[in-house]
């Protein structure tokens, strides 16, 4: 072990000896704050469930919308019906 390792070890050993006082009791008002935070959070959990359902419903709606849009786009851009083309040609040919 070299000198710097030895010095670092001595420093760490001395630091480990230091034991600050640990309070046995929580500070005044601490318990009330934690309990209030916990109960408020528990209330939000119920709301969280509603939000989860809302999010799922929203995603389902977006998926249905995307399918509908892609289906209508596909229908629009497909080749025109052959019968319709002939009908249009005949209609055009009759014009003076």
């Amino acid at each position, binding site marked *: 072990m070299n000198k710097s390792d030895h010095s670092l070890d001595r420093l760490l050993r001395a*630091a480990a000896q*230091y034991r*600050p006082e640990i309070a046995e009791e929580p500070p005044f008002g*601490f318990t009330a704050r*934690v309990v209030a935070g*916990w*109960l408020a959070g528990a209330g939000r959990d119920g709301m969280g469930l509603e939000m989860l359902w809302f999010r799922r419903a929203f995603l389902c709606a977006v998926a249905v919308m995307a399918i509908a849009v892609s289906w209508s786009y596909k229908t629009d851009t497909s080749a025109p019906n052959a019968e319709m083309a002939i009908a249009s040609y005949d209609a055009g040919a009759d014009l003076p």
Partner: protein
Amino acid sequence: MRDAGFDMEACLEGLRSQDERAASDFIREIYPLVLKIVRSHLPRRASEEDLCQVVFIKVLSNIGQYSGKVPVEHWVSRIAINSCLNALKAESSRPELRWSDLSVDRAALLEALATNTDSLDPSSDAASRDLVETLLAILKPQDRLLITMLHLEGYSMDDVKKATGWNIATIKVRAFRARQKLKQAFLDLNREGKL
């Protein structure tokens, strides 16, 4: 640590049914353990009390997930350590340590370490801890956590594994690297002091 007359099982049952009285008893019982962990791994600018509060709210909110397979103290310790680790990660900046920034006590301690090879005087324990924490502040959160647990709190590798969930090989490699980084920071500081 647990009070002889304290019935933890009944208290946990109370917590599951959101009993405020059970929550107060639980907090009073577990507070010293949480405070000890938070104090050991507290980020520089964080408030000890605020972090304890965050830990307790997490514990109480997730009490339904406690299976009872391990002692409740171990479960709480893991939540406390993870909360501290997250708080350390959130503290994004790592300070640069300069000899000129050291207090007189810390500078004298470094000189004492450099000039003699005996154990340090017990009166310098607090200054040593202070200096080590200053050096640790420049390490990454996981490295800092490991050095604190292994060298300052006296945890064994198994204790660290239980507390963090990391495997032994990871702990050994990370601990070695963390120690190298700490040594480098210590050497840089000493070198600067000699200039």
